[in-house]
């Protein structure tokens, strides 16, 4: 009981400052990635994605987060690579235009560190994933920055001649930077 009161008091004390960041600013956010080919790190990015975020750093348990990535907007490092990865062996982006990560829970890890636990779906295949991220407030803006470390083979990204990891490594790091503001809900 005492714990409950203490928790309530804490909530009340911080509640005044608690803000739910719920409006992602697309132009100030980015989804990039790094992969390795012949052990050369190559950076790429997705030009178009839609992110929904409801995140209160004080109440991460109630947070929700979703990122939908438009796979056709990929820049995989060169025009040649962009054409290649749209094909069936890679993303097959005509049939599967979107990659989606849905967080089902967000856990605090101490300080400004959190982890989003959820499901990543690419090319019709889903994997449970955990994405560590940091959340920092800068004035009205809150910035969530983190990494989704995927293995491309889990999603059949790069089949056939590309299935071997000797040239293109299995590990791909998807990095997200989501900047959001707290906007009053229009109730």
């Amino acid at each position, binding site marked *: 009981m005492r714990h409950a009161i203490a928790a309530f008091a804490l909530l009340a004390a911080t509640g005044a400052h608690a803000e739910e960041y719920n409006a992602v600013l697309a132009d100030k956010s980015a989804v990039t990635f790094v992969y390795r*080919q*012949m*052990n*050369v*790190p*190559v*950076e790429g990015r997705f030009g178009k994605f839609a992110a929904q975020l409801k995140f209160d750093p004080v109440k991460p348990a109630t947070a929700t987060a979703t990122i939908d990535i438009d796979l056709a907007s990929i820049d995989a*490092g*060169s025009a*040649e*690579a962009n*054409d*290649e990865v749209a094909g069936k062996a890679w993303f097959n982006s005509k049939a599967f235009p979107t990659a989606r990560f849905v967080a089902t829970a967000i856990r605090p890890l101490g300080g400004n560190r959190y982890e989003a636990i959820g499901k990543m779906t690419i090319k019709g295949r889903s994997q449970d994933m955990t994405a560590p991220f940091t959340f920092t407030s800068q004035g009205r803006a809150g910035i969530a920055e983190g990494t989704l470390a995927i293995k491309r083979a889990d999603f059949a990204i790069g089949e056939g*001649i*590309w299935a*071997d990891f*000797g*040239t*293109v490594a299995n590990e791909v790091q998807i990095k997200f930077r989501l900047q959001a503001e707290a906007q009053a809900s229009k109730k």
Partner: protein
Amino acid sequence: MTDQRYTSTAIALHWLMAVLILGSFMVGVYMHDLPLSPMKLKIYSWHKWAGVTIFLLTLARLAWRATHRPPALPAAMPRWQQSAAHVGHVLLYLLMIVIPLTGWLMSSAKGFQTVYFGVLPIPDLLAKNKELGDTLREVHEALNFLMIALVAGHVGAALKHHFVDRDDILTRMAPHRPRKEQAP
């Protein structure tokens, strides 16, 4: 008696580089319009590793030149030919340095770092810049064709010395010491 042959170090470096340069040139011509595949990515990496190796071996050869006097050209050689040989060799050394550099810069500008043998990352001097990358590709290509023209002249001159002038220009750089001819 002065030794009219190059040292075995110089001979080894010369022929190793001959193989690497001709091999890299042919691979470079072959690889650039391959469709994207794991093999293409491998070949590109091998080509870059060969280029870095050529660059390093050129530094070794320049160090050799700085510390050794190469055998003199035959006194009977006309002056203009001696000058042409000198200019040709300077240009070859210059291109052996500059061509790998343009390859490295092109690779950086195209957004692909060079990682020597897949283990040693070579820093990117240039940031990714498509237009600059395309320009450097053209420079790399043009210098290579200049190089191959010089190599053709180099080989042609060596063969002319051997078969027409019948001097020791070719044999003193030959991998094996020729048998001593018996005086009649």
